[in-house]
């Protein structure tokens, strides 16, 4: 089916699910109407809680769900809507208090009712969840610890919020409504079990083994893995996967890496790993023969999703990894389309995969532009950064029909995108990939 169509279908389902609680509230028997502020407060509470519940679906890495949008967009949406949900949930008690100040007694954690106690508990945990996520780095929380805390707090928030709704809910006033809410909450929490228990269990039966660790330039290490006793998987060039290292797939210690290898090879994969954190550092020093587990492929940054008469790949630093996957795949497919690769790093030794790129020139209609910020004295190619002037000089004449794939540090991508737009490249022809997914 058409990708856009699937995207629209899932969005429609999403809107239905998000609005279902409001619809359910209007199914008789309904309580008599109360003042505007109380009803608004209740509605915002329900809307906020629904969004919190939906989060468990968003982070479930369901490929059919994320396929139309790309999982990076879904995860970004997860962060955005989480903040919105928290604000809506916080407005809920405030409006109740404004409408009738005597309700202040409900805010006493030792007084109030069981409903208010569970509500307060859920809100406090929700705030803790947001603080530890937004300021994780400032609070110096390790990624693995944060994932554990994040998952745990998320489950507790939903459980306590469900208890609050069940006990307080004037709108959950019939048995079938109570059951519907309970079943939904249990179902959502069990998605965590799928992601953290069932999925690893399935991964355990499809292990991979490290067969090569090769240092490339710029602190990047290329790691080759091969499927052990299974036929691997197909992916689109430019996609990525979450990698776990070690004996057990039942760990929260996993990180996303882009494939660098050709999509035409299904049982042997390569990743470009740059030491950006503890996990990457460990991965760089790993021994051959170590078992790894791969959750993928994910992501929508792929030439397979953007057919065009030619491509321009613009990479900064370790952002070369998905470009290598593009180039290797196109070479294996014997693709005749013209390709321009613009690759920028600080110094010449930091250019990763440079030999491989040279070798690919024999098999592809490939033109390369290496851009160094600190070039050696005899450097003949470009120097500085990827700027509008450079693009003006180097971009091919058919720039308006080519598709542009940009992957690199955030500021670089922003600058390149602006420069491309200034030079008449349509927004819809530019594809960006941030490698900090978090």
């Amino acid at each position, binding site marked *: 089916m058409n990708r856009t169509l699937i995207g629209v279908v899932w*969005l429609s389902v999403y*809107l239905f699910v*998000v*609005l279902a609680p*409001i619809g359910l*509230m*209007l199914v008789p*028997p*309904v*309580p*008599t*109407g*109360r*003042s*505007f*502020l*109380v*009803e*608004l407060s*209740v*509605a*915002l509470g329900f*809307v906020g809680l629904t*969004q919190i519940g939906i989060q468990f679906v968003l982070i479930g890495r369901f490929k059919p769900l994320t396929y139309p*949008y*790309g999982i990076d*967009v879904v995860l*970004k*949406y997860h962060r*955005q*809507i989480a903040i*919105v949900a928290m604000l*809506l949930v916080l407005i809920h008690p405030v409006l109740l208090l404004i409408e*009738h100040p*005597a*309700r202040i*007694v*409900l805010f*006493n954690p030792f*007084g*109030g*009712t*069981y409903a*208010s106690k569970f509500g307060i508990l859920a809100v406090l945990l929700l705030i803790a969840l947001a603080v530890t996520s937004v300021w994780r780095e400032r609070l110096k929380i390790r990624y693995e610890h944060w994932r554990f805390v994040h998952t745990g707090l998320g489950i507790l928030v939903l459980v306590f919020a469900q208890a609050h709704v069940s006990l*307080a*809910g*004037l709108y959950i*006033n019939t048995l079938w409504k109570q059951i519907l809410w309970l079943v939904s909450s249990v179902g959502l929490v069990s998605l965590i079990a799928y992601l953290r228990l069932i999925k690893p269990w399935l991964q355990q039966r499809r292990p991979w083994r490290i067969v090569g660790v090769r240092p490339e330039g710029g602190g990047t290490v290329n790691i080759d893995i091969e499927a052990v006793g299974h036929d691997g998987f197909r992916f689109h060039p430019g996609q990525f996967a979450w990698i776990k290292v070690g004996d057990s797939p039942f760990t929260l210690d996993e990180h996303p890496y882009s494939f660098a290898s050709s999509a035409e090879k299904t049982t042997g994969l390569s990743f470009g790993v740059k030491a950006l954190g503890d996990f990457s550092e460990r991965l760089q020093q790993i021994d051959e023969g170590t078992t790894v587990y791969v959750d993928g492929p994910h992501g*929508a940054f792929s030439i397979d999703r953007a057919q065009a008469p030619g491509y321009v790949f613009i990479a900064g630093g370790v952002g070369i990894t998905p470009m290598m996957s593009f180039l290797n795949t196109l070479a294996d497919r014997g693709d005749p389309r013209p390709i321009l690769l613009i690759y920028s790093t600080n110094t010449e030794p930091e250019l990763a995969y440079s030999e491989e790129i040279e070798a690919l020139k024999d098999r592809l209609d490939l033109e390369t532009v290496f851009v160094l910020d600190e070039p050696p004295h005899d450097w003949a190619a470009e120097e500085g950064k990827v700027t509008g002037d450079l693009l003006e000089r180097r971009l091919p004449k058919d720039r308006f029909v080519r598709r542009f794939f940009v992957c690199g540090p955030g500021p670089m991508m922003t600058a390149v995108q602006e420069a491309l737009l200034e030079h008449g490249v349509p*927004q*819809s022809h*530019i*594809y*960006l990939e941030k490698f900090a997914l978090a």
Partner: protein
Amino acid sequence: MRHILANVFTYVLVIGLILGAMGFAWVRSAQLVIAHEGDVEPRVLFDGPDPTAADWLAFGERTYRVNCQNCHTVDGSGRGMYPPIQRMAVHLTADGGRDYLVNLTLYGLYTGTYGAPMPPMPELSDAEIAAVTNYILVHFAGEGNAPDASRWYFPREVATLRGQRLSEWDVADSRPAIPSARDLGRGVKVNITTDAPAVPEGEDE
């Protein structure tokens, strides 16, 4: 492009959700006006109100179910978490007790005995308050303790008690000196009828 579209979607969705919630609140609170106009009430009101009619008790039960039952529970016991509202007929004969029973619904009540305050419910119509109070007095009275019909509330009596500007503490102070609901105990056996019509036959809501 995907990211831009996703951001647009997020903004549109958030605005939609907030507008939806406001729309919901508006629709629900607009019912107050309808209630005051008497449109949702049984027509028995207009052919000489007789609170003893079966329609009235059904109306009281419906009002109880949608407004009170979530806290005070189906048998009026409150299950230890909320005040029991059984055997309330004793209030009717106590000094000031008759007004107190209506005031606590109109203006709320807070005593400190229970964690949550009784929220004021001025949005209920006079007929709803009269009907639900009668329903509670009769239905949760316990064997042989139900007040006789001459003591039941009429909507016009509720109407005279509106507009007093009482706080829930004022209402608590006006409580007649009789044994508390807790002391009176629970255990009233209640015949729960759920098939009673919410509104009289042929009336739309």
